């Protein structure tokens, strides 16, 4: 009798965002300075967040820091993190990945297994396995990693030090570097 309503697809964005909007339970925010919830996007995100929390199928895949959040201090965690807000201090995710979204502004040294950068970072990045600078990325700081990908259009000012894999120190290991150069 009633036609099933087709599922609405979310509109596309510049950067892939995770499926949840929250600050993960395993993420330690040592010094949350302020959270500006007056931003329209943040207001819009709240009902969705509440709905997800009350839903039975709530499942946090990636911790998410929204674009209206400002954190000052040490940010550490033991899960993957999508950061679209502002951080001043340090970020330490050790064995997990950090994605800095297009609105992300980080003034901190970053350590993670994998760092994917769409936004701006002022500080050094240690990506134990891989660092990716997307075309919208702006990085002022040094990179230390085993593999690096820099898209054309990314702005980078600093040093790149490619760490040899402890298990394989041959020249072949270094040749595994992958750099996509899609003309921008």
């Amino acid at each position, binding site marked *: 009798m009633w036609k099933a309503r087709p599922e609405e697809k979310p509109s596309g964005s510049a950067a892939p965002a995770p499926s949840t909007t929250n600050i993960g339970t395993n993420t330690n925010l040592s010094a949350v300075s302020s959270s500006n919830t007056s931003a329209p996007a943040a207001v819009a995100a709240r009902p969705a967040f509440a709905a997800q929390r009350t839903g039975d199928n709530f499942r946090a895949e990636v911790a998410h820091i929204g674009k209206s959040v400002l954190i000052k201090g040490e940010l550490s965690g033991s899960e993957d993190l999508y950061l679209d807000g502002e951080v001043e201090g340090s970020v330490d995710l050790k064995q997990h990945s950090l994605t800095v979204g297009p609105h992300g502004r980080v003034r901190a040294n970053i350590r993670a297994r994998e760092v994917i950068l769409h936004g701006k970072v002022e500080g050094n990045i240690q990506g134990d396995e891989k660092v990716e600078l997307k075309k919208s990325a702006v990085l002022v700081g040094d990179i230390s990693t085993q593999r690096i*990908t820099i898209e054309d259009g990314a*702005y980078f000012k*600093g*040093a790149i030090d490619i760490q040899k894999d402890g298990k394989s120190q041959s020249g072949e290991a270094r040749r595994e570097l992958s*750099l996509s*150069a899609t*003309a921008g």
Partner: protein
Amino acid sequence: MPQFFKMFRSSAAGAPPLTPSQERVPRRSTGFHEFTKVIHAREGLTVLDLGPTSPTNIHYLTSLGHKVYNVDVLLSSTDPALLRKTEDDSITLDVERFFAENLVFRGDQFDAVLLWSVADYLPEPLVKPLVERIQSVMKPGGMLLGFFHTKDAGPEAPYHRYHIAGPDVLELQQVPRFRLQRVFNNRHIENLFQNFRSLKFFLARDHTREVLVVR
């Protein structure tokens, strides 16, 4: 103050688009071929690239086992925060601030420097101090590669990003934002690098002199 706004009006309204051309034109380079003999000779060198960020160059250099520093000097020189008002109300580039914020390195640490054609497009007050700063951060025996237009190139000679495509091949990609500021002749170049040990010139077909300079 009116001059201050005039500068921004001209850059915002009259300037060509900031994005580089998609096209990359390959070009043989004898100077770069000589330069690669140094960077291929051994691993673990420290290389300073003063051109626009090029993933291709970073890939090439890091795959040889080198550490790469990238500072887009020309783009950094366009930072509006560097503009300073003088006593006679004119606007000038704050050279001290520029070098306080850029190319700040401890001691002589670079084995090789890629200057590309930056010196031809850089604002005049920065050229000589830039070369002095480069000299101070290069190791003795370190090598610099620079490209300089001859006057036959004409005043509209476009600025290029240089991408390393092989041991003697570069790919040129136009960046329409910057205009040629000056043309150095051989004597000017020798004076510019007078405190370096040696210079070697290679005249290319595209009205460019490729210069290898040894610290």
